[in-house]
């Protein structure tokens, strides 16, 4: 290697850069921890490639401008938007686009105040906290309420837009929400649309993916299905999907939490004598079958029933 007068490299080994930046690790983590979401992973890989190339270009002095990295994540509830946002923060940090790589997750309540003059300091406080990291605004469309023109959300939007423009190299804003409402939000606030370069759509999980997710969730907590329970779970997913308030992976998480509850109850009432680790960590068919999803739906959607629990 010879020294350039400007100290700028003449060649760049992208593969080596890729390994050195630790991006590979984040992408591997993304592949391992997230089931499904193929288009999202694809987009993230593309973004990572773009950033890596851009970094190389900047090292060579070919470009000086920071690319716009603000993003919007759209998709149904429980499709992993927050999880991906957290990984995104790590990814951008490794690539050197954000200095600290922390994620500040907020909703309308954290940005918009209750009375005149309350909103600006609140929004600015959040922005100050998010500097050097990623600001994740969940359900961003609540910021804009078209039916109330005196709504303070507008003030928060203006401050956000200003910071998104002026502090592009200090923070990355990720907005998330359901696809249709986000579209309406963007069409009412064209400023956002033009400042957000990356729109990533999160597809719903397939039944098969949800089953794998449920197994992953259980194994993370050292539980497992027995064979019959696994078929029951597959059936549960199919049924649950057709019922109201289906929230993809979040519904699965809730179902598993309740199954654990029933399992604990069953062990208490049935167990005689000592239990081994296997008994303590196996979810059986009976624990799942007790769910009312199998008998036609949630009580909350069928009025005039006594208990609201599933």
């Amino acid at each position, binding site marked *: 290697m010879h020294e350039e007068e400007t100290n700028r490299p003449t060649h760049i080994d992208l593969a080596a850069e890729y390994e050195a930046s630790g991006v590979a690790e984040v992408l591997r983590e993304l592949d391992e921890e997230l089931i499904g979401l193929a288009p999202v992973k694809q987009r993230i890989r593309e973004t990572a490639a773009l950033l890596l190339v851009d970094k190389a270009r900047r090292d060579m002095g070919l470009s000086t401008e920071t690319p716009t990295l603000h993003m919007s994540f759209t998709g149904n509830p429980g499709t992993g938007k927050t999880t991906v946002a957290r990984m995104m923060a790590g990814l951008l940090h490794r690539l050197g686009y954000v*200095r*600290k790589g*922390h994620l500040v997750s907020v909703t309308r309540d954290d940005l918009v105040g209750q009375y005149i003059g309350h909103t600006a*300091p609140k929004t*600015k406080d959040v*922005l*100050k*906290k998010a*500097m*050097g*990291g990623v600001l994740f605004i969940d359900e961003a469309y609540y910021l804009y309420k078209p039916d109330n023109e005196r709504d303070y959300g507008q003030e928060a939007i203006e401050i956000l837009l200003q910071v998104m423009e002026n*502090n592009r190299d*200090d923070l990355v804003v990720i907005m998330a929400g359901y696809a249709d409402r986000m579209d309406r939000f963007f069409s009412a606030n064209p400023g956002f649309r033009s400042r957000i370069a990356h729109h990533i759509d999160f597809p719903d999980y397939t039944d098969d993916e949800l089953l794998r997710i449920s197994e992953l969730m259980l194994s993370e907590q050292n539980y497992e299905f027995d064979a019959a329970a696994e078929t029951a779970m597959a059936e549960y997913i199919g049924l649950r999907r057709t019922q109201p308030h289906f929230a993809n992976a979040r519904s699965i998480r809730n179902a598993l939490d309740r199954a654990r509850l029933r399992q604990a109850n069953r062990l208490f009432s049935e167990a005689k004598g000592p239990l081994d680790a296997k008994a303590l960590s196996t979810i059986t068919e009976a624990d799942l079958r007790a769910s009312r999803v199998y008998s036609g739906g949630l009580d909350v959607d069928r009025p005039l029933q006594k208990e609201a629990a599933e």
Partner: protein
Amino acid sequence: MRITQGCFSFLPDLDDVQITAQVQYILDKGWAVSLEYTYDPHPRNTYWEMWGHPMFDLRDAKGAMMELDECRKAHPDAYIRIQAFDDTRGFETVQMSFIVNRPSEEPKIHMQRTDFEGRSQKYAWDCR
């Protein structure tokens, strides 16, 4: 007269890059940053006006620098100092304090000598 106090008082004024580095040092130590300003830099005036609340949960110096810019915009001719508070002792102990803004024309410290009983003298200082 160039008035100095706090850390770095023997150095020339810090520029914004240096201030950012100092603020980042403060944050990395886990201390809270706060801004204070005054138009009365008399050494006995310990209590300066607070500019907003102390910032407890920042991760990056940029957040504090944004506040500093705001403060400079509102009070271009004031003395502004950055302070770092450490709460490990259970109360906010000042760990660092340094001036980051000063007026273009600084006041003088003026000494007033007054005759007193007998031939004794009393001294007073004020900024003017």
